C-alpha cells in the first residue's frame, strides 16, 4: 500500500457514491437493531430491487445515528432528512420517495433541534455516515491518512508531541494525560512493548465505546497503529467484552480488511513498521476494565488487579512496557494527527480539552449517544440536548461515571462538564455514562443498586472491597427496610471512608461514591427511613 493507492481507493469510493443521487442510511448499531432495523434495511433493499430503482436509490447500513430513543432511524443524507420509528412496512414508501428525491413527512425526525445542533462531532465524525463493514468508506473519509502521515512525515517523539499539545486526557474515566502516558511507555527501554485498547465498557447505562466500535471500528485500529508507531510496539490487543457480539464481529471484519490492504501487518506503507492487532474477549467481569486485571486476563490469568506501582507503562502485559488506553481515546488520535494538536486544544476548557461522548440514559426524553465539547453544562446536556425530563416530572439527580461515580443534584446543573469540576462535587467524568433520575427515584435505593453492582463485581482479592461492599449493601438494605438507626448510618459512613482509602484497585476505591454523594446531597431521604435506636434491628 502506497499513499497513491490509498488516495485512489478513496477517490474510487467517492466516485461510485456520486453515481447514485439518493442514499438511504439505515442505522445498524445495536440500539436500532434491537428494534428491527436489520429487517427495515432488508425490506428497503428488497424494494429497490422490486421497484427497479437501482441507480436512483441506494440503501446501506451505517453506525449509530444518535437518537436511539426514536429508533429505528434512517437518514437521507442528500436531503438532509431523518426518518424516525421506521418499520419494514414503511420501506416501499420511503424508497419510492427517495428515488424521486423526495421524503416522507409522516416519519420526519427533525434535525434542526438542539439534540443535533449542539453536538460537536470528532470521535463520532463518521458515525452514522460510513458503512462500518467497508474499509473503502473509511478511507474515503480520510481514514488511515493520519497513520500514513505519522509513518512518512513524523518521528515517534513528534507524534507524541502532537498528542501532548492536544491536551487529550484518557477517556476511560481517570483522565490521565494521554501524551504523558505515551511518552512514558516510549521511554521504557525494553522490548517488546504492547498496545492495549480497553473496550471492556461495563458501567450500567454506558454504551459510548460499543457505539464507536459498531459504527466506525477502523478509527480505533488506526489510533492503535499510530500509538504502536509512537511508542515502538508492534503488537496490539483489543480487550472487548463478549456481551458486545456486534462490535466484536465488526472489529474482526475491520482487522481482516485492514490486513488485506496492508494497513495492518508487516511493512505498513512501505516503511519498516510492523503492527498486528488481535482481539481478546472478556468473560463478563466488570473488574477486568481495571488495567492490571485486564492485563492479567489477556495473559490467561484470573482477572484480578494487582497493586500499582509498577504501572503497566513500566511492567504490563507479560512484564513488558504496555500502553493501555480506552476506545474513545484511540478514536481521538486520527483527527488530532490530521489537524494538529493545537486544533484539538482549541476545543473545550483550559484543563479538559476536546470533546466527550456521553450515553444519555434513564429519565430523559432523548436517550441516545451524543458528543459535546468539554465545558458544556450539565443543564445544556440534560435539558437542551436531552430534551428534559419526560411526562412533566421534575429533575432530581444525574449519575455520572457509573458505579464509580456520584449522583449530582439540581444545584450543580450549571457546572461545566470537565474532569476537575465533576471531581469537586464527589463524582467523576468516568467513561461517559449519564443516568438521569426524576423525582420518583429513591436515592437510597439508587445507592443500594450501585452498591449491589460493586458487591457482585468485586473480585474478592482485597478485604476492604470484598467484605466492605457486602456490609455496606446490607446496611443500605436495612435502611430501606426501615430497620436501621442513626448508628447504622454512622457505621455506613465509616465503612465508606475505609473502603475508599484502603481498597486495592479503583473498583473498591470508588465503590462508596454513590453512597457518599447521596448522603451528602439527599441526606433527608436517608433520615426519613431511620428508626430510633431501640427499634432498630441489631
Amino acid at each position, binding site marked *: 500500500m502506497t499513499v497513491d493507492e490509498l488516495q485512489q481507493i478513496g477517490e474510487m469510493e467517492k466516485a461510485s457514491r456520486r453515481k447514485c443521487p439518493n442514499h438511504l442510511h439505515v442505522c445498524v448499531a445495536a440500539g436500532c437493531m434491537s428494534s428491527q432495523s436489520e429487517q427495515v434495511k432488508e425490506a428497503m433493499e428488497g424494494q429497490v430491487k422490486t421497484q427497479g430503482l437501482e441507480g436512483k436509490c441506494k440503501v446501506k447500513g451505517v453506525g449509530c445515528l444518535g437518537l436511539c430513543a426514536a429508533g429505528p432511524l434512517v437518514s437521507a443524507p442528500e436531503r438532509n432528512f431523518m426518518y424516525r420509528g421506521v418499520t419494514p412496512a414503511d420501506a416501499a414508501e420511503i424508497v419510492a420517495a427517495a428515488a424521486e428525491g423526495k421524503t416522507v413527512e409522516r416519519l420526519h425526525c427533525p434535525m434542526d433541534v438542539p439534540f443535533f445542533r449542539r453536538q460537536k462531532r470528532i470521535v463520532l465524525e463518521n458515525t452514522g455516515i460510513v458503512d462500518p463493514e467497508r474499509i473503502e468508506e473509511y478511507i474515503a473519509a480520510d481514514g488511515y491518512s493520519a497513520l500514513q502521515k505519522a509513518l512518512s512525515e513524523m518521528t515517534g517523539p513528534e507524534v507524541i508531541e502532537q498528542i501532548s499539545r492536544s491536551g487529550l486526557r484518557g477517556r476511560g474515566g481517570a483522565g490521565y494525560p494521554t501524551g504523558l502516558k505515551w511518552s512514558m511507555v516510549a521511554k521504557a527501554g525494553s522490548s517488546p512493548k504492547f498496545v492495549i485498547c480497553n473496550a471492556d465498557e461495563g458501567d450500567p447505562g454506558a454504551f459510548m465505546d460499543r457505539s464507536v466500535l459498531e459504527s466506525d471500528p477502523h478509527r480505533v485500529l488506526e489510533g492503535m497503529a499510530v500509538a504502536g508507531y509512537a511508542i515502538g510496539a508492534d503488537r496490539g490487543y483489543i480487550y472487548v467484552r463478549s456481551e458486545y457480539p456486534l462490535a466484536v464481529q465488526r472489529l474482526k471484519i475491520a482487522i481482516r480488511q485492514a490486513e488485506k490492504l496492508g494497513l495492518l501487518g508487516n511493512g505498513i506503507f512501505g516503511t519498516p513498521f510492523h503492527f498486528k492487532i488481535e482481539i481478546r474477549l472478556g468473560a463478563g*467481569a466488570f*473488574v477486568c476494565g481495571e488495567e492490571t486485571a485486564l492485563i492479567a486476563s489477556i495473559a490467561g490469568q*484470573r482477572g484480578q488487579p*494487582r*497493586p500499582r*506501582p509498577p504501572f503497566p507503562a513500566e511492567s504490563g502485559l507479560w512484564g513488558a512496557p504496555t500502553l493501555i488506553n480506552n476506545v474513545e481515546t484511540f478514536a481521538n488520535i486520527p483527527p488530532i494527527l490530521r489537524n494538529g494538536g493545537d486544533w484539538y486544544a482549541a476545543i473545550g476548557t483550559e484543563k479538559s480539552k476536546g470533546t466527550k461522548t456521553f450515553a444519555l440514559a434513564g429519565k430523559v426524553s432523548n436517550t441516545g449517544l451524543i458528543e459535546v465539547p468539554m465545558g458544556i453544562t450539565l443543564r445544556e446536556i440534560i435539558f437542551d440536548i436531552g430534551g428534559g425530563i419526560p411526562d412533566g416530572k421534575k429533575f432530581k439527580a444525574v449519575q455520572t461515571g457509573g458505579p464509580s461515580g456520584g449522583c449530582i443534584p439540581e444545584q450543580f446543573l450549571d457546572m461545566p462538564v470537565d474532569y476537575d469540576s465533576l471531581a469537586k462535587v464527589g463524582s467523576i467524568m468516568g467513561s461517559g455514562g449519564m443516568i438521569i433520575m426524576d423525582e420518583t427515584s429513591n436515592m437510597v435505593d439508587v445507592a443500594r443498586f450501585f452498591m449491589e453492582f460493586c*458487591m*457482585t*463485581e*468485586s*473480585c*474478592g*482479592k*482485597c*478485604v*476492604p472491597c*470484598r*467484605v*466492605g*461492599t*457486602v*456490609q455496606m449493601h*446490607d446496611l443500605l438494605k436495612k435502611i430501606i427496610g426501615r430497620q436501621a438507626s442513626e448508628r447504622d448510618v454512622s*457505621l455506613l459512613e*465509616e*465503612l465508606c471512608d*475505609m473502603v475508599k*482509602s*484502603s*481498597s*486495592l484497585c479503583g473498583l473498591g476505591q470508588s465503590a462508596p461514591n454513590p453512597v457518599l454523594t447521596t448522603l451528602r446531597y439527599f441526606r433527608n431521604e436517608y433520615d426519613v427511613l431511620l428508626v430510633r435506636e431501640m427499634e432498630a434491628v441489631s
Partner: protein
Amino acid sequence: MSTGATVITMKIDGKDFGGRADETILDVCRENKIHVPTLCFLEGLSGWGACRLCLVEVKGTNKLLPACVTKVAEGMEVTTHSPRLEKYRRMVVEMLFSERNHICSVCVSNGHCELQSLAVAMHITHINIPYRYPKLPFDASNDLFRLDHNRCVLCTRCVRVCDEIEGAHTWDVAGRGVESRVIVDLDQPWGDSQSCTSCGKCVSVCPTGALTRKGTGVAEMEKDDRFLPYLTRMRGSRT
C-alpha cells in the same frame, strides 16, 4: 554475593534508615524491628498486597500503599503508625471476623492463629460490624488434612506456596467477591485430587484454622512455617 541494587536512604516514622532499591518497605521495617502487621504476606512467597493490614502512609502520595509490595526509593518518607492507619487495620480485622465463622473457642487453631493474634494485639474484644454467619462447607476427604472454609481468610498463602514452592498448583480461588473460596484442582474434594502431593506446605503456611492436620483437637493445631525462607533460598540458588 552482590545484587548490584542501588543503596538508598529513607525515613520511617521520622528516623533515617538505609535500604536497597530492590527491597520493599516491609523488608526495611523488619530489618529494623519496626512492627507492621501483616496477614497475607509470608516471607518466602511472592507479594500479594490483598489484606491491606500493612498499608502505610508515604509522603507525596495521597494513596495508602501496601508495605509488602511497595519498593523503597531514595528520600522516601514513610509513616507506619497513625490514628488513621490503626483505625483501618482494626476495621480489616473486624471485617475478617464478620465475614466467616471464626469461633475461637472451638477451633483447633485456638491459641496458634494469626487472625486471633492480630485481634489480641489490637485489643479487639468485640466487633462493630455485623456478623454474616454464612453457611460454608468442610472438606475432610483428604487422608491427612482438613479444609474448613469457615476459618478461611482468603490470604491465598496456600495457593502461592503450592504453586511457587511445591510446583503442584493444586490450590486456586473460584468465585468472586464475598463468594470467593479456595478450591482444589477444578473444584473437587481434596481427597480426589490428582495433583496434590500431600506435602502439607499449605497447612503449614495457613494463618488460621482453615487448613489443619487430621487428628488435632481444639487448640492442638500448631504450625511452623520457618522452613519456607530456607526452602525459597535453596531453590533460588539452584536456578
